[in-house]
């Protein structure tokens, strides 16, 4: 059985507007699964539902989220928080708001080790130094004493990656981890995440709107539209021949750097109309 298994997850805004429609997906231990879709497709919401940080306005109507074989939605709040804390972690989208500006970096990396694994601050400190070296931060002792505003965006994202991997979680949700960074840094960060993931054997749920990123990082992917998964496939098979017309159109719309003169291809009107109707029938 897969480590993360979501079945029939349906969520909506309190009052009716559907956010996720009957979403099912699984991520095996140590595998990397990509969630792709336009903004508003609900890809981030799946990650947030797993981690128990959905906005208050959104409620889960039905479905189950099995994390390591136990349904999170059936656990009492305290036990759920403890289980999520022990097994999962988040690499957030925006490194600029993801570190507490009024605390030094060091304790923010060691927090998880102290809170979740019950380590002493001293042990946690030593481990944090190793982790920072692992994400290729030079002079980690100095960085640990710095405040977030003293560091660049790429540096902060490295720190967040280090702290996500700190307590050896089994699953990491990476919510568009490179969107807020500039392109030159993006590639490096992706390589870093993938490398750590392989070394630690962590399963990774990779939320992104960039199919190019998916092709480099993920093993399998799900394409979302309007809160529904329209296609789930292995990455090789998908990029060779996408099955769903919307996925095909999305793939065709990805800019080709090999041909800089080519104009951008939008997703055709009729494909969107069709996929809308399909999702609404749902």
């Amino acid at each position, binding site marked *: 059985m897969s480590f993360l298994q979501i079945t029939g997850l349906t969520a909506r805004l309190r009052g009716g507007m559907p956010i996720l429609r009957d979403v099912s997906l699984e991520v095996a231990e140590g595998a990397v699964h990509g969630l792709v879709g336009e903004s508003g497709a609900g890809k981030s919401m799946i990650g947030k539902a797993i981690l*128990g940080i959905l906005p208050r306005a959104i409620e889960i109507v039905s479905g189950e989220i099995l994390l390591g074989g136990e349904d999170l939605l059936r656990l009492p709040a305290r036990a759920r928080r403890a289980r*999520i804390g*022990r097994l999962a*972690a*988040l690499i957030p*989208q925006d490194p600029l708001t993801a570190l*507490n500006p*009024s605390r030094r970096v060091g304790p923010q990396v060691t927090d998880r080790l102290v809170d*979740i694994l019950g380590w002493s601050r001293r042990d946690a400190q030593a481990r944090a130094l190793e982790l920072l070296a692992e994400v290729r931060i030079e002079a980690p002792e100095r960085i640990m004493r710095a405040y977030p505003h003293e560091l660049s965006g790429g540096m902060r994202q490295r720190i967040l990656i280090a702290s996500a991997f700190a307590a050896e979680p089994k699953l990491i949700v990476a919510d568009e981890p490179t969107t807020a960074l500039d392109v030159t840094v993006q590639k490096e960060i992706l390589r870093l995440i993938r490398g750590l993931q392989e070394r630690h054997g962590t399963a990774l749920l990779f939320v992104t709107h960039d199919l190019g990123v998916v092709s480099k990082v993920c093993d399998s992917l799900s394409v979302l539209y309007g809160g529904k998964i329209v296609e789930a496939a292995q990455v090789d098979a998908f990029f060779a021949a996408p099955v769903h017309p919307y996925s095909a159109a999305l793939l065709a719309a990805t800019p080709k750097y090999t041909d800089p003169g080519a104009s951008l291809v939008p997703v055709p009107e009729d494909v969107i109309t069709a996929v809308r109707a399909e999702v609404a029938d749902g």
Partner: protein
Amino acid sequence: MGNLRLILPGIWLSVLVVAAVFAPWLAPHDPLAQDLFLGRMPPVWVAGAEPGYWLGTDSLGRDVLSRMMFAGRIALVVAVVAGTCACLVGATLGVLAGFLRGWVDMVISRLVDIWMAFPPVLFAILLVAVLGPGLWTIVIAVVVIDWTRFARVVRAEAMAQGAMDYVASAQVAGRTRGATMMAEILPNVAPTILVLLTLEMGIAVIVEAILSFVNLSISTDDPTWGGMIAEGRTSIHQAGGCWCSRWQRFS
């Protein structure tokens, strides 16, 4: 060279504070001592002034400078005590409402709305009428009127901080809501609270002056800045009387 805009007000503030704190030793006269033969004297640099009464005297012949210094003590106590208490009450409720949201926010926010619908000065006068005049009544009145100012602003700030990713990260890491509030929210709204507190201290002094101006602060014998303006006003049309008012407004 330091920053002139910081130094000048700093010096003026220190002069006021020192004058107030050490009033019993520094004041040239007893602030309550009357001398009806020396009523309504102008300040020293005006012809006909009485030497020793630097800023002149009021209608009962009391030394204006001494009274100002003693009145400063009351203003200072009100500013510090009332300001701090209003801050504690308001900021606590604000952080709770802004971070916990839900029904807690509902109750606190509606309470603030209702509170702010009362005209503040009337509210204070009502309070003084019920509790009876006195220094602590003023302090309570200021707290009761002004906690909403803190609650509203701090709530908004706590909401903004609560939406940040580091709060989500803390929750993913299994932190309880209480711990998240203390470690993640509070330190980041603290600068806002501090700024509000400094503003509030000034406002508290003005409220105190307003209340004593309408004679609702402490016993009428004890000097207050507001009370002195009121007294000065009654003699403003008489020769020299205007000096009293003018001095108080300056404070």
